[in-house]
């Protein structure tokens, strides 16, 4: 496990390993996953605007679980032959959060699964522009874009999912959902004695951690800190 604190622009050549990154400054990060490398990265972004560029070379894979607090995070992804990318991009924000995501399949036989979970806590902007790009002459690729924003108040939330597909022999889908907290879950938790505010916190946590598959203990602590106030107040 590699723990890295990032406070300036950085290019990281990922190895067959698991990484934990903490970012609390505006910066540009570039991940390069060389041929046959399989990496896992959890990224905690605090009060920052960052750009993440990812290049997956052939026969490689990358899993990213990312939690952003009061942040805007852009992704620019290029994926090559026989490669696989799985990203869970969760953001909880009391400030404007504008996120642009570009996912580009450059060669055949590659897969991208990109999930965004946004919690818009206040009456602010939360935008996700998600573009999946599959160019001509590319085949046997899979692209899934799945975006969700939950408004806790009356935030201005938007999801713009685009699939720009020039090839026929591919599978691509996208979904977008903007809504409020699920009352069925809220009522269920309250029926177990849990107070309304605590139940709401649990639901927020469940949304942010949904689909994550790495060690996310740090995220759980951070969500607790965030919800309780502290450094984000």
């Amino acid at each position: 496990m590699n723990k890295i604190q990032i406070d300036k622009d950085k290019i990281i050549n990922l190895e067959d390993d698991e990484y934990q990154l903490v970012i609390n400054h505006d910066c540009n990060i570039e991940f390069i996953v060389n041929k046959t490398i399989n990496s896992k990265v959890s990224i905690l972004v605090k009060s920052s605007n960052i750009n993440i560029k990812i290049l997956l070379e052939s026969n490689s894979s990358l899993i990213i679980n990312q939690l952003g607090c009061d942040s805007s995070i852009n992704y620019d992804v290029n994926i090559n032959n026989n490669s696989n990318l799985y990203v869970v991009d969760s953001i909880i924000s009391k400030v404007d959060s504008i996120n642009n995501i570009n996912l580009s399949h450059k060669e055949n036989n590659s897969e991208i699964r990109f999930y965004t979970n946004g919690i818009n806590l206040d009456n602010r902007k939360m935008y996700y522009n998600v573009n999946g790009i599959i160019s001509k002459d590319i085949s046997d690729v899979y692209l899934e874009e799945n975006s969700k924003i939950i408004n806790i108040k009356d935030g201005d939330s938007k999801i713009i999912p685009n699939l720009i597909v020039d090839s026929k022999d591919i599978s691509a889908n996208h979904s977008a959902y903007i809504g409020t907290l699920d009352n069925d879950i809220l009522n269920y938790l309250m029926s177990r004695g849990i107070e309304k505010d605590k139940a709401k916190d649990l639901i927020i946590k469940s949304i942010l951690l949904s689909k994550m598959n790495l060690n996310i203990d740090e995220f759980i602590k951070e969500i607790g800190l965030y919800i309780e106030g502290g450094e984000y107040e």
Partner: protein
Amino acid sequence: MNLEIKNLFVETDNKEILNDFNLKINEGEIHAIMGPNGVGKSTLSKVLMGYPDYSVTKGDIIVDNNSIKSLEINERSKLGIFLVYQNPISIDGVTTSELIKASIDTKGEYKGLYKYVLELETNTDKLDMDKEMLHRGFNVGFSGGERKKNEILQILMLKPKFIILDELDSGLDVDSLKIVSSVLNDYLKENPKTSVLIITHYTRILDYIKPEFVHMMKDGKIVKDGDFSLAKLIEKYGYNQSFDIEGNYNHE
């Protein structure tokens, strides 16, 4: 727990669902409410639990001599009312262990991690559940039977005083039904003051958890009362014919 529903009228979306509903369940009694689809059985369970979607327009719900009509869902739970849902939801990102701990915490009954884990694992064994499920997203990827077992696990951990079983046997195979009902019966023996309200279409569940009182529901109210033999009458003749049969079942 003693619970009395008095002349209760309930509506949702301007539609009357319960219509002068009356029922009294004393401490330690097991009652069953039977009725076909759409007569308001599941609504009753949610009204007792305090769901805000349903508005009580007349009448009252009394628990141990106090009205609970104005209490929120979590406050009713704290009194000891527990609803076993017909279709328990799933919550990704919150584990079973975490949810139960949060519930116990709320009641101020958390006795430390060691005791908690020991009790949780002992009860998981009783229900023949895989312990690994405790640390997965709540009910995520669980079968119908596993979800019902997860409900019963919460009963064992939270120790309610009034249990509502809404279609407990739906989604349960015979083996799981035997395990679940055996665990519930053991719980009721150990906690003889616990009252139970079984809500069901079919009599199958009543062969495993035997009610002393059976009520037949139609059009939002109870139309016949009886003992276990009323369940057998319904099983034999169906709801419509049973309603027409005169006997010792007429609701006062």
